[in-house]
């Protein structure tokens, strides 16, 4: 039996957990390839025009993956804490995929803390569907959760090392599925690395500092994933030289949270880049070039 993990959206939040869980249960896992232009075109055919770029890419990945595996793992998330929510695309993700691809087999779990569906019970449900007992899947889940914790600790360490270097430092702010995507974020990280700049990602913020740092910018925000962005901005802004905000068009939560960042940044140099269906990245590179020039002190005439 093979389980397919589409390499988009929630993959970048949960990949360590998923992989470790299925590894413990000795279930084979297949990932889709990195995003290419072909993936985006496939996804655009399957989705409606107005849906966001990340969702289009996600559907493209499923189209590429669906013949290679027996099940595709698609979680549904409503709320990760009691009083917060996530983007409504994650609420509808499972049903969108089920309605656009009627003939694929989906492995699904539901996280909805507000209505008492925890992550743990979700994973037990997956284990049951694959034919494992509750104890087996619970053990696997607990081990996987520790591996996930280590992964995030490791990311925090990476950020600390980057912050110690003498190079120009830039904070890349955005959802992990935008920053790490081969088509969107990788172009920018490659360009920055070529220019000898050390990069700090917004998801590298220490997990226990999120609530405190977020309250410095916004107290009422209810999007759990955007809380991470706001707190990362507040936490890193004095430690880095500049910030690049990456957004997919048209991202619902980001449209408001970016506005808050830009209004509360004071004099911190910030550039906001919004991505639509991209065919070449010359325009993006030009803007990055001028931003880097500005960070160096500008062109004095």
């Amino acid at each position, binding site marked *: 039996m093979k389980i397919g993990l589409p390499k988009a959206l929630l993959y970048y939040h949960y990949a360590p957990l998923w992989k470790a869980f299925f590894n413990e249960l000795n279930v084979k896992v297949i990932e889709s390839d990195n995003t290419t232009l072909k993936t985006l075109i496939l996804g655009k055919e399957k989705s409606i025009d*107005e849906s966001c770029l990340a969702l289009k890419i996600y559907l493209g990945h499923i189209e590429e993956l669906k013949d290679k595996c027996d099940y595709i793992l698609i979680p549904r998330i409503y709320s990760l804490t009691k009083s917060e*929510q996530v983007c*409504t695309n994650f609420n*509808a993700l499972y049903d969108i995929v089920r309605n656009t691809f009627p003939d694929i087999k989906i492995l699904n779990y*539901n996280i909805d803390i507000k209505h008492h569906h925890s992550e743990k019970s979700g994973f037990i449900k997956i284990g049951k569907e694959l034919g494992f007992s509750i104890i087996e899947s619970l053990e696997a889940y607990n081990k996987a959760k520790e591996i996930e914790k280590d992964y995030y600790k490791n990311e925090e360490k990476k950020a600390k090392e980057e912050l110690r270097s003498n190079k120009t430092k830039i904070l890349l702010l955005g959802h992990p599925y935008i920053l790490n995507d081969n088509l969107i974020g990788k172009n920018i990280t490659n360009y920055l690395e070529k220019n000898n700049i050390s990069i700090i990602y917004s998801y590298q913020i220490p997990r226990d500092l999120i609530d405190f740092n977020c309250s410095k910018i916004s107290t009422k*925000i209810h999007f759990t994933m955007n809380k991470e962005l706001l707190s990362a901005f507040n936490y890193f802004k004095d430690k880095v030289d500049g910030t690049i905000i990456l957004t997919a068009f048209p991202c*619902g939560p980001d*449209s408001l949270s*970016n506005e808050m960042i830009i209004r509360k940044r004071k004099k911190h140099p910030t550039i906001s880049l919004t991505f639509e269906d991209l065919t070449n990245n010359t325009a993006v590179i030009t803007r990055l070039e001028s931003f880097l020039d500005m960070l160096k002190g500008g062109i004095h005439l």
Partner: protein
Amino acid sequence: MKQLVAFPQLGNYFNPIRKLITNTTHLKVIEMPKITKETISLGSKNSPDTVCVPFKYNLGNFIEALNKGATVLFQAGGGCRYRYYAEVQETILKDLGYNFTMYQIMEKDHLRFNELYSTMLKLNPYLTRRKLIKEIISTLIYIYYLDNIDIYIRKRVGFEKNKDSFKKIKDNFIKKANKENSIIKLTRLYHKAKKELRKVEINKPKDTLKVGIIGELYTAMEPFATYELEKLLASYNIEIKRFTNLSYLLWQKKLMTWFMKFKVRKYCKYTLGADGLDNVYRVYWLKKHKYDGIIHTKPTGCTPEIGAMPIIMNIAKDNNMPIIFLSFDEQTGVEGLNTRIEAFYDLLKIKKEEENGSKSRN
């Protein structure tokens, strides 16, 4: 100096909400002007560009109210981005240099009495719980009556013999109800208005087209946001069914959710966020009640509706229901809308004639 209160406009609901605020806090509510192109341009000038249109409308409303001297603003919250509107709008308006305090009712997902009470207590320290409960009940009843009258009118407004005869009765009801504090007298007024409505002469042909309007809540409830789509449909002599109104959102939705999820379980396993699931269910409902077509309205970039659209398309296709998707922006040209509605009307008419023709041949 007495403080002046303002809140964003939403169709006819200005009246019941104003009554609630004046009766509980004894503050004066600003008589808001109708939404015009000026309002939208004021709002969209100062808001982020990828945000949905209701944000721009509300911000425009606030700026106009602040220019008139408002010092207390009210904003609500809901399931989607709407819940985060209040803080962002407060930041934007403060950056513009206005001086005011903003209160958000419904900070969490649902309306809670204690939250509302503590907010109102800040404005009127002498307010008792008992008084607030009485006022809330009377406001909810007022909203319920208003919605019922609207539902009655919407079904028949396209066929009235004397123009504006329905509107006159409704305006008269609102005018009298605004002054009425007793619930019993309000009920009496409502029954009187209903009696008058029944007396209005209508000229309804036998097989008229019936169309259901589904979609996002703001474009459904604020007539200007859809450039008075309902009036346009009435001019084509179409019978209209609209689902979303305040009484639906405030209490009916909560009771209906499990039932809707059960009925459309083939398409939806979970709720889709905001009104997504409701709209999927409504397609099923409209088919069951033999409606001819569906109009889906939403502001550009409404994430919950975009998520629900593939599913709505699927269920409409399986049920053989004609559906048109309209997306509204701050742009105010009406001609594009007119053309599309005209084409949709022709399509529905031809379809209906074909169906009737095939029946008579058999």
